[in-house]
């Protein structure tokens, strides 16, 4: 029984590895012509012009990282706060379970629905706030433009909501795994509730919470549909939260359907770049986690 299960687990792991390698290989192969044609300049150029066959994805790389980072900050803070709220006796345990289910249900909402919600609800709601911020604090680069519809802010907000279930539920699990005796130890030392949470519980759960953040960030980097609808698809690099931007995934989604053979090759290169970013982020995340684990936990 146990051995059978172990066999299945190994087989699945091996299958996933093979799949990842295969995907990299396949996309890499299709991207090869564009790679040799445009070289590394592809990553630093800012034009995407099918007529002149000039392709570059710096604005998309910027938009991908910027929107995901904003989403990570927002979704991370709220996700961890929710996890604390759900695990540290702020709620009756039955109620906490209900809340948790509701948050996990967010993950089941199709991203096109998030996109529609963003267009019809969030953007109209954001506009007065954005106008006010731009009007009174326009000298701050983050508020440097006004919001004329789709843009970075609505995209990042929706992304944050989309990664919330991931961050919150993994953080909940890692906080819940802490044995009761650790909490007793904290209170026994004379901590207040918040001191126990901030100085003992969160550090103890840090590797799990870090994993939650890495996964959330990975999810944000690759999110496609909602972003294609909300980010504005503009090839520009701006710090302003209200400016339209673009991401790699959104570029792929919106350009593929009508792309001719030349553009498809460039898009394959862009896809490879997105894949590379995601893999690097995950690898860095894993390394950080390993380091944190070594620091805080027993090496057993």
């Amino acid at each position: 029984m146990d051995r059978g299960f172990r066999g299945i687990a190994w087989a699945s792991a091996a299958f996933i590895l093979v799949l990842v390698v295969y995907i990299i290989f396949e996309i890499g192969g299709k991207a090869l012509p564009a790679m040799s044609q445009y070289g590394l300049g592809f990553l630093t150029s800012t034009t995407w012009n099918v007529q002149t066959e000039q392709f570059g994805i710096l604005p998309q790389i910027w938009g991908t990282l910027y929107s995901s980072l904003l989403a990570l900050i927002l979704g991370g803070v709220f996700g961890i706060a929710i996890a604390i709220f759900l695990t540290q006796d702020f709620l009756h345990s039955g109620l906490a379970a209900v809340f948790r289910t509701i948050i996990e249900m967010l993950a089941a909402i199709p991203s096109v629905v998030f996109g529609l919600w963003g267009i019809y609800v969030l953007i109209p709601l954001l506009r007065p706030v954005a106008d006010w911020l731009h009007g009174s604090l326009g000298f701050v680069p983050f508020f440097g433009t006004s919001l004329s519809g789709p843009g970075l802010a609505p995209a990042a907000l929706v992304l944050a909501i989309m990664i919330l279930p991931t961050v919150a539920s993994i953080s909940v699990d890692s906080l819940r795994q802490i044995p009761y005796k650790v909490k007793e130890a904290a209170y026994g030392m004379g901590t207040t509730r918040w001191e126990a949470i901030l100085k003992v519980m969160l550090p103890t759960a840090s590797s799990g919470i870090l994993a939650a953040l890495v996964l959330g960030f990975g999810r944000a980097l690759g999110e496609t549909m909602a972003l294609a609808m909300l980010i504005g698809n503009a090839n520009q690099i701006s710090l302003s939260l209200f400016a339209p931007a673009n991401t790699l995934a959104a570029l792929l989604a919106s350009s593929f359907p009508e792309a001719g053979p030349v553009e498809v090759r460039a898009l394959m290169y862009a896809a490879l770049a997105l894949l590379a970013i995601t893999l690097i982020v995950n690898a860095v995340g894993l390394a950080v986690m390993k380091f944190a684990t070594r620091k805080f936990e027993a090496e057993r």
Partner: protein
Amino acid sequence: MNAHSEMKVAAEVAAPASLGIVMNCQLEKVFYGDFLAVRNSVVPIEKNKITGFIGPSGCGKSTVLRSLNRMNDLIPIFRFEGKVTYHGQDIYDKKVDPVVVRRYIGMVFQQPNPFAMSIYDNVAFGLRLNGFKGDMDERVEKALHGAAIWNEVKDKLKNSGLSLSGGQQQRLCIARAIATEPDVLLMDEPCSALDPIATRRVEELMIELKEKYTIALVTHNMQQAMRVADTTAFFGVDISQGSRTGYLVEMGPTKKIFEEPEQQLTREYVRGEFS
């Protein structure tokens, strides 16, 4: 805030003349929900002595011990009726903040429970919590010496506290508890997870510690009570009401409790005639 200074004043004013009783637990009724767990027990804790709590399982030893620093407040259904005076101040008074109580009355638990931090940070935890500004290294070293574990860990203070053996972890927890120099140390079966050698070390340590601290010790092990406790409190279980309610049967010098107790129940228990 206010409660803090009151506790402090109480501790300092009483300190010189406090030969004698540091804490006095005058427990009337303790409930978990509707369940009456312990009733009518007066347990004075004497300064610089080890007071042992013995009795059959479920008689409320841990409950009484944890009432002494309000650890039981963590359990929502717990309810305490009575008084626990600490240098004359009732720690169950509404004005008193349990957080402050626990900084004066430290605790060592049955299961070693170091934090998932370095050995150093474990010991420094309470000092940092209290905003200690002095020489941290010195205090950490002193506490580790005090807990008789310095020689084993002095070269690996940066390693995780969880990387130590069970016995070392327990001594680390003792170091963590004494680093802030609390007044009273509560120990709930601190040796039950340890092997005989580690147990001996912790027992020797307790005897050293009582020079500076006042200790209340729950133990299941009669030999341990005889070896280390100056005073012993024997708790029994009253099943006459159809429920199981613990109460203090008898308390006195350890020798007397074990050799010539006044109560028949105590005699039977210490002779091992029932458990």
